[in-house]
């Protein structure tokens, strides 16, 4: 595949060749014209000179015809060359454009794939972080719940005791206190008697 620099060089060479060809053509035509312009002869023409003039005219005509034919052929060739050049250029441009489009498309596909990979990676990372945070949060909630329940269980008896004291008041307790105490002592009579008599 020809890159842009090489393509530019080819175009430049073609233009130079065209220029040289054109210069050569103009030079040939100029020479023929100079050959055609002869210094004016005296009034009495010599038959030999006349023949020469006719010959020259004939030659000139032939040369002009030849030059015209060459010119026409070169023009034709130039036109054909231009058409070919245009076709080559168009083809080259099309190929280059296609290649660039293909390359661009591939780049887009690659970028898209890379983006997908990045997004997938980020999503995975975020999911992992989310799971970790959720696990941590759940563990924290469980721990907090455990602490609260533990604290509640630890203080439950005290809370209820204080509640009973507050709710019932001392009056209701003291009214029946002696009887309650004696009932409790009676319920634990054996234990107390064993303690006092055995040890004492």
């Amino acid at each position, binding site marked *: 595949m020809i890159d842009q620099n090489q393509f530019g060089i080819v175009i430049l060479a073609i233009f130079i060749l065209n220029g040289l060809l054109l210069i050569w053509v103009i030079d040939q035509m100029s020479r023929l014209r100079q050959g055609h312009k002869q210094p004016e002869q005296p009034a009495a023409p010599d038959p030999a000179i006349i023949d020469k003039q006719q010959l020259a005219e004939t030659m000139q005509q032939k040369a002009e015809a030849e030059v015209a034919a060459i010119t026409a052929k070169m023009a034709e060739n130039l036109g054909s060359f231009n058409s070919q050049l245009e076709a080559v250029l168009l083809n080259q441009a099309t190929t280059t454009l296609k290649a660039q489009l293909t390359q661009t498309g591939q780049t887009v596909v690659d970028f898209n794939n890379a983006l997908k990979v990045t997004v997938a990676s980020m999503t995975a990372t975020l999911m992992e972080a989310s799971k970790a945070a959720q696990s941590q949060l759940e563990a924290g909630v469980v721990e907090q719940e455990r602490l609260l329940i533990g604290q509640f*269980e630890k203080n439950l008896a005290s809370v209820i*005791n204080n509640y009973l004291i507050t709710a019932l008041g001392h009056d209701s307790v003291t009214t029946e206190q002696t009887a309650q105490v004696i009932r409790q002592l009676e319920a634990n009579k054996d234990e107390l008697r064993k303690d006092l008599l055995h040890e004492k």
Partner: protein
Amino acid sequence: MKNKLPLSIVTPADVTDCLSDLSQYQKSVQNNHLVHKVGGATKPAVTELSQPAIDLLGVGEKLPTNEDIIQAMDYLAALHKQPLVLHLTVVAELPLKGQVAIAEWFRDSCHPEALLSFSVNSQIGGGIKVRTPYHLHDYSYASQLEANKKDLIKELARV
């Protein structure tokens, strides 16, 4: 005559007071004898004794003899020297009648010479704590709630 600890003597302080009272009474009697010997006519009255001393001596119509007083003092001194004191903690201050009732129960059921010392702690909720020289018996509501906390939690969980 064998002395029996009366219910009017409940605390160790009662023992000390009674002992002091009997000692004063004995001195009073001795002084009275001296006065009588030197011609005086005054006799000490039984009413000068405190009720615990009267209960201890078992005084009726008859005045206690010097031997009775000495015996009672020896009994109290021995009790004072090696007392069996039970420290009781209750939720509110007990009236004297209640203290006597509890002392009676201990002397009838456990030991005839048990002395009681009372203290108040509203945090026990109710019931009683008994601290003997050897063990602590906790029959308070607070400890019973604590001991049955699992059942309480089960009940709460059921609710």
